[in-house]
């Protein structure tokens, strides 16, 4: 989850998010390069009295300031397209979960083998126990097996929502009447937080997402226990 005064991304918990982090670093480096150059030129132009009113054209500099941006754009586009195609690779998921957005909670359905479904409401601030995170905890977490490819089918029951977990590098719009698909693998066990990312009414900020990644045998025990409870 995010921590106070955080500037950058959350620590990656999936391989795709790691790639996105490195790509962001690469692109930001280029942004700093261009911004520094432009800032220097602006300051130099502002403090000078020298001008040349008779300059009409200059082929050399026009070639430079056409080619250089084109090269920079290619340097950004190539890693970007690499990650785009990486995210779309056939990944043969071990598990498919349906995440449905409602006003104002998420519901999860695990229907691969049995019919398991439950709602996930935010825990109100006054009901939190010490150590829990305000506006991020839910009564039921979406539990998945760690290091297993998981497919999430995202949709909504009423208005637009968006299922987002930043440290997994996932954001997928939940559109009523539409099934959106995304997939991920968690690199390590843990608890990963996200929040609804499409304005959906009064309690849009109060329908968080919690993903819990545990080893497979514990996931199986949990799903058996959940089936007995329902």
């Amino acid at each position: 989850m995010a921590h106070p005064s955080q500037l950058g991304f959350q620590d990656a918990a999936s391989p795709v998010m790691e790639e996105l982090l490195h790509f962001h670093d690469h692109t930001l480096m280029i942004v700093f390069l261009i911004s520094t150059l432009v800032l220097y030129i602006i300051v130099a132009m502002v403090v000078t009295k020298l001008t040349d009113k008779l300059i009409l054209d200059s082929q050399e500099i026009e070639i430079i300031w056409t080619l250089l941006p084109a090269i920079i754009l290619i340097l950004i586009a190539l890693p970007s397209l690499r990650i785009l195609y990486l995210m779309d690779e056939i990944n043969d998921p071990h598990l498919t979960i349906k995440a449905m957005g409602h006003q104002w909670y998420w519901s999860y359905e695990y229907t691969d083998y049995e019919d398991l479904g439950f709602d996930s409401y935010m825990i109100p601030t006054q009901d939190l126990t010490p150590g829990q995170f305000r506006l991020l905890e839910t009564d039921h977490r979406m539990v998945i097996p760690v290091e297993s490819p998981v497919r999430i089918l995202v949709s909504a029951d009423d208005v637009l929502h968006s299922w987002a977990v930043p440290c997994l590098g996932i954001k997928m719009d939940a559109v009523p009447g539409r099934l959106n698909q995304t997939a991920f693998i968690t690199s390590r066990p843990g608890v990963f937080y996200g929040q609804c990312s499409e304005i959906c009414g009064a309690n849009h900020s109060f329908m968080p997402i919690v993903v819990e990644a545990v080893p497979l045998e514990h996931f199986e025990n949990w799903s058996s226990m959940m089936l007995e409870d329902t």
Partner: protein
Amino acid sequence: MSLQKPIMRGLLAKRLRFHLPIAFGIAITVALSYKFGVTEPRKKAYANFYKQYDAVKEFNAMREAGVFESVRPSGK
């Protein structure tokens, strides 16, 4: 004694020849500083973290700390 004729032409070009290499130099220095100060250390940090990562040990530590709701602490 006569004064030397002052330079009256090419002043802007001279200024550009002085400042543009400095501008490019500073911009490239900033970019390289970010690359070797942030980008490469971050890549190494992730590589080192997963090189020595023991998922079972970390899972058990988190389990005993009560982080998970699907798995209760074993009490060991």
